[in-house]
C-alpha cells in the first residue's frame, strides 16, 4: 500500500474542542478515527500535546482497544460475529467464505480499500446466527452463497 499524504490540519477542530482534557482521550481518538478512518501515527504526538499526555499514553490506549487502528481501513467494514451462538451455527465456514471471496484474512483490508474484515466477539443478535455486520447494517441467518449479493451493495 502506498503511503498517503495526511492533512493533519483536520485535527485542529477536534483538538481545540478538547484542549487539556485528559479524560477525553478515547472520545478524541474516536473523532480522529471518524475523520481519517484510522489513527495516523503522525497524529499521536499532536493529540498527546493537546491533551497534556505523553505520546506513550496515547499509543497505549490506541493499542489497548480493539476499535482503534493505526493503519488505513477499508471504506466498508465487515464484522463476522464469533459469539457462542454464531459459533455453534458454524460461523467458521462463513468466515472462511468471506476470506476467500475478498482474498484477505480477519484483521486485514483489501488493496483497493473497499473492505476491511474485523473480528467481532459478539454482535448481540444471537438468535439470528450466523450474523455479519457491514458498516451499520446487520444480516442474520447468512449462508455463504448469499454473500455476493450482500457485498455488492457496498462500494
Amino acid at each position: 500500500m502506498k503511503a498517503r499524504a495526511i492533512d493533519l490540519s483536520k485535527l485542529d477542530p477536534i483538538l481545540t474542542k478538547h484542549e487539556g482534557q485528559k479524560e477525553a482521550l478515547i472520545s478524541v481518538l474516536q473523532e480522529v478515527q471518524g475523520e481519517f478512518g484510522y489513527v495516523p501515527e503522525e497524529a499521536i504526538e499532536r493529540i498527546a500535546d493537546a491533551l497534556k499526555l505523553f505520546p506513550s499514553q496515547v499509543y497505549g490506549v490506541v493499542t489497548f482497544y480493539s476499535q482503534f487502528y493505526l493503519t488505513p481501513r477499508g471504506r466498508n467494514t465487515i464484522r463476522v460475529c464469533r459469539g457462542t451462538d454464531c459459533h455453534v451455527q458454524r460461523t467458521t465456514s462463513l468466515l472462511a467464505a468471506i476470506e476467500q471471496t475478498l482474498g484477505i484474512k480477519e484483521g486485514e483490508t483489501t488493496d483497493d480499500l473497499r473492505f476491511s474484515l474485523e473480528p467481532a466477539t459478539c454482535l448481540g443478535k444471537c438468535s439470528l446466527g450466523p450474523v455479519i455486520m457491514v458498516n451499520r447494517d446487520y444480516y442474520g441467518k447468512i449462508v455463504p452463497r448469499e454473500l455476493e449479493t450482500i457485498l455488492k451493495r457496498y462500494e
Partner: protein
Amino acid sequence: MEKIRAPEELESLRETIVQKMDPAKTCVRICMTGCRAYGAGEVRDAFNEEIKRRRLEEKVEIRETGCHGFCARAPVIVIDPQDIFYQQITAEDVAEIVSQTLLKGNIIDRLVYADPATGEKFPFTSDVPFYKGQTKNVLHNCGRIDPRNISHYIARNGYAALSKVLTTMTPEQTIETVERSGLGGRGGAGFPTGRKWRFVRAARGDPKYLISNASEGDPGSFKDRALLEGDPHSVLEGMLIAAYAMGVKVGYIYVKAEYPMAVERLKIAISQAEELGLLGESILGSDFSFEIRIKEGAGTYVCGEETAILASIEGKRGMPRPRPPFPAQSGLWGKPTNINNVETYANVPLIILRGADWYASLGTERSKGTKLLSLAGKINNAGLIEVPIGIPIREIIFDIGGGIAEGGRFKAVQVGGPPGDCVPERYLDSVLDYGSLEGTGSIMGSGVITVLDENSCMVDVARHFASFARYESCGFCSPCRLGSKEMLDILTRISRGEGREEDLELLVDLGKQVMATSLCGLGGSYPNPVLTAIKYFRDEYEAHIKEKRCPAAVCEALV
C-alpha cells in the same frame, strides 16, 4: 413540548397524551431492532407505502418499536387492537395484510405462528406459548412503544416513579425500598443493589457519580441492547431515582461500541427528557438536578468489569485494578461511584411504583424479581425473554423455547456466557438462580442461555470460550494472561487429536489456579465453561484423547 415544572404538570401532560390516543385505532407494531437483520426495514417501507397509497394515514398507525422477543421468527409484527401476531413476514405480504387484516379483520393463516411439534396455530400474541410462559415486567414497554417518542413512555406511566420519589420519599426511604425489594445486580453477580446504594450514599467525597453499565460483553448476551433500543427511558428513569437516592449529580452510560442503534436511541431519549425538564436542573420543580452523559466503549470485554470501566471513562487503558478500595469509596476520579447494569436500573421504577413487597413476591428465597434472558443456540424459539428468577431450566428450553431445533436431541446448555457453566441434561430441573448448581458458582450470570444439541462438540465449545478468554484477557495480571493461552493451547491440541492423557488433569488444575489467583472477575471465572464441560462430558474428551475421535463430528482434524 414545554418544560415540566411540577409533578402535577407531568400528570396533566400524561392525561393529554392518553386522551389523544385512541385504543381502538388500528396499529401495526413492527420490531425495528433485532428483526432489522432479517428484513424489517423493507417490511416497514412497504407498510408506509401501502398505507399512503390507500390513504389510510388517519386510520392506521405504523409504529416502529423495540424487540418483541421472538427473534427466531423475525421479522414479526403485532396488530392492535386485536393483538394479532404475524411472523416471518416479507414486504410481499404487506398488501395482503392491509387489505385482508387491517381493513376486513381476516386472519391470514400462513403468517400465523404454528407450533413446530403439534402444528397447532396461535393467531394472538397472548396465546403463543413463547409469550405465555413469560412474565414481562422490565420488558412491559419493549415492543409496544416507539422508543424515540417520549410521549409513548409517559403514556404508559413513564416518569411516575421519579415523580413519586421526588414528592413523597426521602433518599433514605428510596434506598430502604430498593433494599427491601431484594433486587440484585443484573450484570451477573447479583450483589444487593440497595446495599450498594447505601455504601455510596454513606461514602465521604464530593461529587459522587453513577454509571450505567451497558458494556454487555458476554458473547450470547443481547438483553441490554434490546432494553436500550426498545425502552431507553426506563433506564434513564432508574438512573434518576438512583441519583436522587445517593445524592449524585452526574451519571454516565457506558455503551458497547458495537451497539450504534442503542447509542442513537439513548441520545434521542436523553435530549427529549432534557427538553421536558426530566433531566437537568431542578427536575419537576424540586431542588434535585441530574445530568446523563454517554460514553461509547471502544471494543473491549474487560471494560464490563467495574474498575476497568472507571479507567476507560477516565480515558485510560481499560484495565482492572485491585479492590479494595471499592468504587463506592473510590471510583471515578477517586470519588464515590455507583455502578449498576442497565437492566438493574430498569427494574427500579417498577419497584417504586408497585412496591418492595410486590417485587419480593417474585423469584426465590435469595434472588428476587424477574430476569431478562438471551435465549439462543440450537433451540426453536430463540429470542429475548423475561421470566421470574427460580424457573426450572427445563421450562425455559422446552416450554418457552419450544425445544431443540430441527428435531435434534438436547446435549447441554451453556448458562451465563464466559463466566458460566456447561450444564448437562441431569440438571435441567434445577432452577435458574444466582448460584443454584452445586458448587459451580453463579450460574445465571448475565442471563445467557445457549442450547447445544448432539451436533455440538464439548471440546469445541470449551475451546471457543478459551479462545474468547485468550483474546479478551487484558494482560495486566499473569494468571489470566498466561492461563488463557495455556488452556487454549491444550484444548487446541485435544481438538486436533494430539491430546495427552494428563491433559484433562492439567486443564482442571490450571483452571482452578487461574480462578483463584486472577485479579478480576474475568480470570476469576472464564475457566468455568471449560471446567464444567470436562466435569460433565469427560467421555467426550477421552474419545478425543484416547480414540482420536470427535463423537459430534465437529473437530475438523478428527472427522
